[in-house]
């Protein structure tokens, strides 16, 4: 139809987010929806500005991938006054504003961390296992949640414990640098049993650092990370990575469906449309998954 949807995207800070943008555009095209994207470059104030300008332009619906959980009340009230439905993508916002948006299409990032932790406990199998953790950007809610979830996942197993934890800013370069220092600090890496990274990019960097230090990731050192970007499947296919938890880039698809149904038939969707957090291991034919994912815009 002639629907116009404005999307306030966080930015383009990672391959995953680039993929989310690409997939969203493709999904809009599939449904013949006029789709406007405003890139906020990681800044909440920019997102608020973008939403304001969408309201001023009179779009039919607004998608918001909120960079933080709080602080949306005022601008979402404005949207509500203008009778424009808002759908949250990828991340949830603070509960105080529940009635201000139509629905949220997100995964549960605590759950993601928990899945990773549980996998590690199972794989370590009772042996003592020292884990080093590569955190996401300090202050990012996903980082905090993935940390929390992982800690929940390993809570029951006293043999698995986190010995070092530093931020790798969600980037490959920092992931590599931090891993290098972990290796030095942990006796050349001999004390490290597993690496947990808050995203795959950092893990790819960490794998390189381990290889350069003469360690064998995937066999000597277990790896588990989150996102399921194509490059981690490449590493899994090469036997250098063990597991990843998927965060699907297709959040917009379900959101469009909800909006179309709401506009056409007035169907009110559930408050939370949760996406799956699927665990992939070397057993899942990583090569094939790599091929299927590599052109999605990651």
């Amino acid at each position, binding site marked *: 139809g002639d629907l116009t949807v404005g999307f306030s995207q966080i930015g383009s800070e990672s391959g995953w987010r*680039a993929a989310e*943008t690409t997939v969203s555009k493709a999904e809009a095209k599939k449904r013949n929806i006029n789709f406007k994207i*405003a890139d906020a470059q990681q800044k909440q*104030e920019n997102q608020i*500005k973008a939403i304001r300008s969408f309201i001023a332009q009179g779009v039919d619906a607004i998608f918001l991938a909120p960079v*933080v959980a*709080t602080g949306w009340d005022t601008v979402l009230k404005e949207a509500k006054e203008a009778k424009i439905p808002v759908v949250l993508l990828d991340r949830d916002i603070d509960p105080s504003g529940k009635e201000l948006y139509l629905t949220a299409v997100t995964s549960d990032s605590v759950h993601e961390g928990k899945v990773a932790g549980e996998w590690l406990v199972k794989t370590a199998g009772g042996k003592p296992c020292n884990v080093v953790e590569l955190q996401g950007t300090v*202050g990012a809610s996903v980082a905090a949640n993935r940390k929390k979830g992982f800690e929940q996942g390993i809570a029951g197993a006293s043999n698995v414990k986190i010995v070092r934890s530093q931020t790798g800013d969600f980037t490959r370069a920092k992931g590599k640098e931090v891993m290098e220092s972990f290796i030095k600090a942990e006796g050349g890496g001999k004390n490290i049993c597993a690496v947990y990274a808050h995203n795959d990019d950092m893990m790819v960097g960490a794998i390189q650092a381990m290889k350069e230090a003469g360690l064998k990731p995937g066999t000597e050192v277990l790896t588990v990370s989150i996102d399921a970007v194509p490059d981690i499947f490449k590493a899994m296919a090469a036997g250098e990575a063990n597991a990843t938890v998927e965060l699907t880039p297709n959040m917009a698809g379900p959101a469009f469906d909800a909006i179309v149904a709401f506009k056409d038939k007035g169907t009110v969707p559930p408050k939370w449309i949760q996406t799956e957090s699927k665990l992939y291991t070397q057993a899942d034919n990583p090569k094939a998954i790599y091929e299927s994912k590599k052109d999605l815009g990651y």
Partner: protein
Amino acid sequence: MNVAGRNSVSRLLPVAATSAVFLIGFLICSLTFPNFASLRVVMNLLTDNAFLGIVAVGMTFVIISGGIDLSVGSVIGFTTVFLAIAIEQWGVPPLMAFALILVISALFGAAMGAAIEYFELPPFIVTLAGMFLARGASFLMSTESIPITADLYSHLAEQAIRLPGGARLTVPAMAMLAVVAGGMVLLHLTRFGANIYALGGSRVSTALMGVNVTRTTVAIYTLSSALAGLSGIVFSLYTSSGYSLSAVGVELDAIAAVVIGGTLLSGGYGFVFGTFVGVLIQGLIQTYISFDGSLSSWWAKIATGLLLFAFIGFQQATLGLARRSRRLAAAGAH
């Protein structure tokens, strides 16, 4: 020895050029997008850039004095976190928390100013350390974003002057306009303001002219940080929350606004009003890009750069033309 005077109006030229550039830019946007030329867009421009405008006024003072303050973005971030924690967790009444944070940020600025003066350190580095420190301190207080639910906040958010066409003159916008007006008075009409210009013109001379350079410098950084604190309050009103990563990079936006507004980074020249227009120009560029909406993330960045270049290039050209015609006019008078 009667010698012909120079036109003092020439000093206003950069501001005039900047304003002209803004108006032309606005006109072009209005012609390009249907809903653009509305009161709502103008008011949004004020509200959305209120925190930037406030902090840029402080930055104008610092830059005119020949310094720079990189810490302001972090001070804003710290302020929002402090307010959220103070109000939500410690139960401090909001107005009291406002007063408290203004004092804290002012003291922080005074400490930076004192370090610059007493240890003869470059402002760039002292305030860079201040930037790390304030951001680090907000991480230590909380890495999570904290909503502020105090009544005052929702009350202030409602408190806007409603104008036709759904436009609203909000509290943040009014705060910014007040700060701009106050800044103009302070900079252009007081002794303190004259001292700031003198300092930027020549530090050594200013000291030799009997101005207390130390006190002035400390006051300038105190003012800048206090305004960053105020900006943080506005930011927290704007988002009703506190978050340690908020306002990252705002210092660069503020510096850019100041410089686009015709202030020389090397100090000594500039106007608060120019800064205000500089802020609006930056807001206009962003509004243009979100109105367009078809640009991918990277094209948006490239377009921002190109528009920035267009504005600055046009400003430069206007200035050059104006200077030339003035010289020729002077020649004609001979």
